[in-house]
């Protein structure tokens, strides 16, 4: 993401990268052990104190009031070293974005104002799923003025560390689904252990079962899909920024390693095939940077077709990241596969992030179907 001439964005760019380098990189291997190792509570708190979680919130909600460009700069720089923290910030922001689109600002404000620690602030969400793609959804029943949710949800991201969750559920006799906010401490909530996953180990997800758990309706009944799609339009470019950050980190590590490692009597970068591999990585990294910057500009300035730009950026850059990180391991040979280096984690995280906001082929189908309307 190119910060350009905007001073605030350039400062943010530098600050976040320093944080990633100093706070995330040294303990990356240790943090990746979760759930078989400790959770990185202190790093999370530091990120919260640095206002990373407030980047995209409007000023009236104690946010920084920056547009999507700032948010992308934040996520990209974090992902250069450890995408798990970016996953947490992204998921929470998705929940907040939906609540704002659903005009439930008062509800969101209560959560933000009451938050003393980062965990009080977080709202869990099944961010790897588009609710229309999966059946069955939770069911919601109205009783007096309250709603009660039952059923099960797989892979609720931040479910083990957040106080709240924003969940899609089906009200009987209402077409479409609705969003509800629940408290995860409700006695009707059964939580699983953190789900062992491919990547983003420290951005934990759990499965939950609900039995008559009280929920607050967020937005209008049956309009869940509208809010989700509008949120997706904006947040796709943020997912692209995460992938672009991983690409930056992977290329940097591969390039530096290949200039130091000797095989056949010379630095491996001086073999022409390695030059070609590194060149392809460098090109992908540069192109992704340009794509994300352009898409952010389109989103922030509400250019015609900005929604398409945001989605196209994500679909393309995420795929490039999966390919680049494969080469990122390959360039380091055997050590690239080992956990003491950052490349294998970037490979896993790139693939993991590709699944954000729904199944890739279905997102592509949706993209062309929108053009058909």
């Amino acid at each position: 993401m190119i910060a350009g001439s905007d001073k605030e964005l350039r400062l943010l760019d530098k600050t976040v990268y320093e944080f990633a380098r100093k706070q995330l990189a040294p303990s990356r291997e240790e943090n990746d052990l979760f759930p078989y190792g400790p959770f990185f509570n202190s790093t999370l708190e530091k990120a919260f104190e640095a206002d990373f979680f407030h980047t995209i919130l409007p000023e009236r909600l104690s946010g920084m009031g920056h547009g999507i460009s700032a948010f992308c700069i934040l996520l990209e720089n974090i992902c250069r070293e450890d995408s798990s923290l970016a996953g947490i910030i992204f998921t929470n922001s998705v929940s907040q974005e939906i609540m704002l689109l659903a005009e439930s600002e008062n509800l969101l404000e209560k959560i933000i104002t009451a938050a003393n620690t980062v965990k009080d602030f977080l709202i869990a969400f099944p961010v790897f799923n588009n609710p229309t793609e999966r059946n069955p959804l939770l069911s919601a029943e109205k009783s007096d003025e309250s709603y009660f949710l039952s059923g099960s949800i797989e892979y609720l991201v931040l479910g083990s560390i957040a106080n709240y969750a924003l969940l899609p559920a089906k009200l009987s006799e209402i077409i479409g689904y609705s969003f509800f906010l629940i408290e995860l401490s409700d006695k009707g909530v059964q939580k699983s252990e953190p789900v062992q996953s491919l990547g983003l180990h420290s951005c934990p997800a759990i499965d939950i079962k609900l039995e008559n758990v009280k929920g607050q309706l967020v937005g209008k009944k049956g309009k869940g899909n509208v809010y989700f799609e509008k949120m997706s339009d904006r947040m796709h470019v943020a997912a692209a920024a995460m992938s672009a950050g991983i690409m930056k980190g992977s290329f940097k590590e591969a390039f530096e390693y290949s200039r130091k490692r000797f095989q056949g009597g010379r630095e491996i970068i001086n073999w022409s095939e390695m030059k070609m591999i590194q060149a392809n990585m460098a090109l992908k990294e540069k192109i992704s940077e340009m794509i994300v910057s352009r898409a952010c500009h389109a989103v922030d300035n509400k250019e015609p077709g900005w929604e398409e730009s945001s989605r196209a950026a994500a679909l393309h850059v995420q795929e490039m990241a999966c390919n680049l990180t494969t080469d990122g391991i390959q360039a380091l040979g055997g050590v690239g596969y080992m956990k003491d280096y950052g490349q294998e984690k970037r490979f896993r995280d790139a693939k993991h992030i590709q699944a954000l906001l729904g199944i890739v082929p279905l997102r592509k189908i949706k993209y062309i179907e929108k053009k058909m309307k």
Partner: protein
Amino acid sequence: MISRSELKKLIQREPKFDDIMCSLQMGPKIPKAMIGETKKVVAIARKFNDEVVSPYVLELDSKMHEDPEFLPWDFVEQANKWGFYTMWIPKIFGGKGYNFPSLSYFLEEIGSVCLSMANLIGVHYLGFATLTATWHTPIIKKLCNDVAQGEKNGLPCLISLATTEPDAGTDVEEVELLDKGSVTCHAKRVNYGYLVNGSKVFISNGHISQWHILIAYSNLEKASENAVVLAVKSGNKGFSFGRQEHKMGQKGCPASELIFKDCFISDEYVCLDSNQLSKGKQKRSNKELFMQVLDSVLAVSRAGVGAFGTGAARGAFEQAVKFALETEVDGKLMINFEWVQCVLAEMYKNVIVSRLTYVESNYANCLYGFYKILQKKVVFYSLKFTPIFLIKKFISPLLEKPLATSFFRKIQMDMLKDEAMHRTSGWASLSKFTTTDAGVKNCQMALEIMGQAGLRHDKRTEKLLRDAKLLQIYEGTNQLNRLNVFKCLIAGKNPKVVMFEE
């Protein structure tokens, strides 16, 4: 229409008929019983998958996440109980003598469920193949006897290959790079043996093997001309294990550091000394001999990795089909969408094409490789139907004699044509990079279709991707294997071609 001389000339033109038609040539020569034997091997593999691999695969992987130092002794013992460590050792060396090509089909089957466990068994045969490629029959007999004993007494005896060094990965697999590289595992000639100092890294099965076929060098400045192959037993004075690597995948197969500090190996366990060998009447130089040994091993082992890659591609394909059959989108079954059917067809193609390459590589080895003698019908059927007690009484004792070593080295090394070596080596490399790229590709495609479900460990697919990536790296990176294909099958004798310069 065409004269004999014209025919000969035309089929020698690129692509050479013999290079591209191994399966056609091998067809009529295949002992018919090999087919039945191979079917049996596939059936045994599937049963082993059902009863042992599939129920344990996720548990083992989780255990390794939790404790990266864990060693899978339970599984090692299970595979021993099922007789897998002797299954492909020829009867003359005390094994069960199943045909060597059938090992590939076995590895594909196991690999489609768990590459760790497939690799654990496969790597034992990498050690065995390296040992055999030296043709030192008394040592081969001794080690194989230990493996057979281990099966009888329930104490598994595995053989590993120790070649990679901290500063020499790619370099140790190609003699043209070896002397430019930086190997440090020194075997100093002393009275009655060698004194070894140095270390080896990323050695598959290191911590769980009892014998290690170690490639060291008596002169580190000119390593390619001074290679020494030694059989080192675990527990040998001066030999210890260092760290166990923390890998992204294939966690159930340990990757070990081996440390040698004034480790004495007696002449009794010197499998091959390229200096001593070339003083005999071998027609090749030290360097060429050593490359020949490497090539004959890699021609077999890379075909084995070809089977792993096919297994990975197949496992991913099967998971994707399962998911598409169980999942609804917009109220319709996913598998009924054309785009899904096309993706699955593409994945299926990757599996089939991969399998074809390792099968063709196997045929090349049957015709020209170091186990070709076992594929001759007369030898195959003789060994198959000769009772074990007769083999032990009349053939095995002959293997103790130096004459047996000379005989095998004469026919397997000296009489081997360069063309034949290039064919087997080139096909193995082709299979290796084709199938492993396909394996990783299929895993990525499966995860794309599965979305959120694919990210979960309990759905098995993310583990396949983590495991599959290593296939593109070991047994020579895919880049090195491409260069080997160029060297062996494309460059020919063109005087303008120079390898390993740019």
